[in-house]
């Protein structure tokens, strides 16, 4: 009797069965992504605070607004937007540049 050979190596499980892991559609995921982007773009509620400025700083805010409008065609900007953008930029500068930042130099010198 002939000795049995090893069976041929077959693997039917490698045939596609079209199963899905993500049980959602592109449209469903995209709609949620759009909702997330819109939520990020929505302006956050503003809190009212009061700081006193010297007159030239008040004038500077007006000057910025005027220059943006006349020289750069920026129509939709108000005083609050300008003050807020300036403060946030000053913080970024302070965090990135530390002692060489504008605020550290300005007030470091004033203190010394």
């Amino acid at each position: 009797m002939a000795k049995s050979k090893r069976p041929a190596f077959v693997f039917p499980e490698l045939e596609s069965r079209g199963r899905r892991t993500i049980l959602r559609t592109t449209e469903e995921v995209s709609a949620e992504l759009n909702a997330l982007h819109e939520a990020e773009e929505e302006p956050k509620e503003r809190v009212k605070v009061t700081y006193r400025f010297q007159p030239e700083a008040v004038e500077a805010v007006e000057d910025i607004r005027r220059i943006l409008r006349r020289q750069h065609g920026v129509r939709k900007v108000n005083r609050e937007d300008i003050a807020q953008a300036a403060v946030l930029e000053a913080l970024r500068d302070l965090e990135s540049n530390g002692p060489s930042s504008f605020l550290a130099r300005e007030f470091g010198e004033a203190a010394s």
Partner: protein
Amino acid sequence: MAGASQPTIIAVANQKGGVAKTTTAVNLTALLALAGKRVLLVDMDPQGGCAVCLGMDTEALERSIYDALVKPEVGIADVVVPTAFDFDLAPANIDLAGAEIELKQALAAETVLQRKLKPVLDKYDYIVIDTPPSLGILTVNSLTAADKVLIPISAEYMALRGLRMLLDTLENVREVTNPGLKIMGILATRYDGRTINSREVYEYLREFCEREGLHLFPQVIKQSVRFAEAPGYQTPLVIWRKDLDGAKQYQKVAEEVINGEV
């Protein structure tokens, strides 16, 4: 493209356990770093194997990838820790198991990792993602965030089970969340050329890849007890004993990756 402002993001994925996903992710990351690349290793497996391989206590982590995935105020940069091997790690621990449930409540849950990685993309040339042995939301997140997927398959009959399911999942991810996802290649691991089974499986894999137009890495990773020993030395094998065959085999794979051949 590596070296430009956008890194190449490689997911090391296979839902089968014990196929050397973590070994491949850790050693490939270490070799990319040795080649002077800026690399981040992201551990998306709740077993936290990457941190363990690098000698970190996963229970002592102040923050992990879990925090970045489920807490809106925590970014990837907040959880990244530098390693002793010139690359960064976003470590995981068992907390990440909870993210499987918590992420399902999130909007566009499949894309959380992709969105969280955006702020750190310009800091790295490569981001390597180690994925869990499942096809759940953590793996889907990893595949959605990736440019390419590297599939380690141990050269044994049982490991072929699920390859088709993984390929179907990759197709599914391309359709729904990441049309640009490419298969970098299939890497045969734990290959033992002394056994007929290993040789047969490898040959079958070679024919399958040829038929399906998939890249099979010409370099196999041979079975070696050294891979199991390396975590005990808290060092990737390719650094701990670069003279060993296993290290040289991963070196060949890394060269193929760096040269952009895959």
